[in-house]
């Protein structure tokens, strides 16, 4: 099954500007190399807060985990944070196996991330 990657920018009232990278399809040995190639130039730009939305991702193998590690390392190098949201149960199962939560910020939903980003925003602006 092919993979598509969509980029968008969003900012809900009370939260920080966020770049959203949405994956749809399967992230495996076949789709991961072109995904990395597609992501590389874009990771250098955008917000310092990046949401990796996996709501449309139906399969991930170790090659796909490598893409997520690559994203995390590349963003960290420019001081940006990345947050993974909406992992479906089969994706979460693979995350659990490799203990991805150790060092990665996983949120079960975009709303949960927004609540967290709102608290970050409050701290940044000194309101709360």
């Amino acid at each position: 099954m092919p993979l598509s990657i969509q980029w968008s920018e969003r900012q809900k009232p009370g939260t920080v500007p966020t770049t959203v990278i949405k994956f749809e399809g399967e992230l495996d040995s076949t789709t991961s190399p072109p995904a990395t190639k597609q992501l590389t130039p874009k990771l250098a730009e955008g917000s310092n807060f990046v949401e990796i939305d996996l709501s449309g991702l139906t399969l991930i193998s170790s090659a796909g985990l490598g893409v997520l590690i690559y994203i995390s390392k590349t963003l960290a190098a420019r001081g940006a944070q990345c947050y993974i949201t909406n992992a479906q149960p089969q994706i979460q199962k693979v995350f659990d196996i490799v203990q991805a939560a150790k060092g990665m910020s996983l949120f079960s939903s975009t709303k949960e991330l927004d609540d967290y980003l709102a608290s970050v925003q409050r701290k940044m602006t000194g309101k709360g």
Partner: protein
Amino acid sequence: MGRILEGSIEKSWRLRSTLDDLARVQEEIQAFCAAQHVPAETLHDVRVALDEVLSNIIRHGYSLVEGEIAVQASVSAEAVLLEVRDRAQPFDPLEAPEPNLRLDFGDRPDGGFGIYIVRRLMDGVEYSYESGENRLRLERRIKRPLAGRGETGPRGGSET
């Protein structure tokens, strides 16, 4: 493991050790298993394991030199069995070291998760080297329905 499941339905594929052929076999295995009503969670695990095993053979077994790989899938009411055979140099993936999970996810080296994931997703993994072939057998049992919840099983093994 290493057994023929009673009433199982089998299908075999031959592929070149390329990512294009890996993708083709994945699509055909998905169609084959879906036609036997293999539950989605089982099918996902089987396809992840196959991606790990085949990509390992392509990259490390044949070292990106083109060779031949044979895949056989057997589906019954109880389990999905996969046997993957290749003629690359003898390589027992089960001897691969486990990844260092103490490191933060983002700090881990790329690679090293594959066989670890396979072992955790499958209920049985066996390797042998016979007649000049690496043979890896994978078994993923199918959970039976639990009082209105959980996965539903396949149609049964009597249909051939």
